[in-house]
């Protein structure tokens, strides 16, 4: 899945394909709501295919394109990618004006986390005994 944001035309083409299903260039062109050259749409479809957003098959010298994911799946992946990119950024704890609970929470040794959980359970038991 690409992390690049989609351009306006790319998004329009994706909308057509989500609405219509598998289509070739001639099917997409009249549904874009504005006069666009056949080659422009062909290039856009090819770019979306290279971005791994579409699958395609060849039938009688023409390519037929279909979305790789449903719109819902794509939205979910996009959100996931965005968060992954955000968390991978070296700016996370420094140059972003964000107060985050994960500021002090990194990739920790799971044994250490197990140890913390044990302590929390024990504290909860103690609080329970004291009736808090």
């Amino acid at each position, binding site marked *: 899945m690409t992390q690049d944001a989609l351009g306006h035309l790319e998004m329009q083409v994706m909308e057509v394909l989500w609405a219509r299903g598998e289509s070739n260039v001639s099917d997409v062109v009249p549904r874009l709501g504005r006069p666009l050259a056949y080659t422009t749409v062909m290039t856009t479809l090819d770019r979306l295919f290279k971005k791994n957003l579409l699958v395609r098959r060849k039938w009688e010298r023409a390519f037929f394109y279909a979305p790789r994911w449903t719109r819902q799946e794509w*939205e*979910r992946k*996009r*959100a*996931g990618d*965005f*968060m*992954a990119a*955000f*968390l*991978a*950024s*070296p*700016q*996370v*704890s420094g*140059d*972003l*004006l*964000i*107060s*985050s*609970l*994960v*500021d*002090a*929470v*990194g*990739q*920790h*040794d*799971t044994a*250490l*986390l197990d140890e*913390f*959980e044990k*302590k*929390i359970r024990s*504290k*909860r038991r103690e*609080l329970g005994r004291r009736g*808090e």
Partner: protein
Amino acid sequence: MPFLARFLFVSLATYSLLHLALGLMVSAIARPAVHLGERIRPRLAAGCLLALRLLPAAGAALIVAVVCVPSYLSNEPEAPTESVGYGCMLVALLGLGMWAVSIARGLRAAVSSRSFTQRCGQAGRLARLPGAPAPSYIVDSTAPLLALAGIVRPRLAISRGVLRVLTAEELAAALRHERAHRSAHDNLKRLFILLAPGILPLAASTRTLESGWRKFAEWAADDRAVGGSERRSCALAAALVRVARIAADSPQPSLASSLLGDTDQLAERVDRLLRAAPPGPRIAGRTTLALGAALLMASSLVVAILQPAALYAVHRVLERLEHFVE
């Protein structure tokens, strides 16, 4: 050289030298101040470290504005034949460069943060969580995200992954923690820190003070969130560990490198929360009194300095700086 140009060069050069002097002073006390911070209330500690971090930039600007500018304007002749020494120009350009770098850093951070908030809006939907002061962005992601984003009207962004793993009590504690950051205006303070030029010549002191401030700001938010209750304290510790667990179990290798290295801080925070419930916030009566006294002393000092004789003495020093390496 025209009067205005000389005035700007001298003001900037004075600013740079004062910044350097105050920076050296702050560098000497940065580390002890962070250690001392552990013995006082986190909120006060965070406030003191923030003040120290901003002191060279703000102090130098204040002295220039209150002392040097009136002195120069009242004593400097407007003769266009006077010139400014190369040394003075160089020091002035250093000051200008420091500010340019910091302003660029602050603007970049503000733009990235705005873009982050906008993308949260695109990738998530607004919903009102119980206990949250304003509608929050619920982002459809498994990432360990629970953050307050924005400066003027900060909004909470929370991932479904975090919502899934936290119990109602833990979520409430985590939301109270973020609310504490909101009422302390911590994002705005982050912006001030980025906008203030680093402490020269010892950049390590800048990092010491900034990381110290971040730590005590977190502790202060923890204290405010638990409000002296051991039960809430335990719930917040559990929330921290659960969110850390998401990060630990995350399959993204990039996540490992980006958030690595704060194990000690997490351990310290969880231990602190479990040891005993941190006390609730106290009305800072003594702090207000101390601030009032400091303000009174500063005003008296300004009145004394603004006497003609004192302004003339300051101007003689400025004249030397103006003709430095002519």
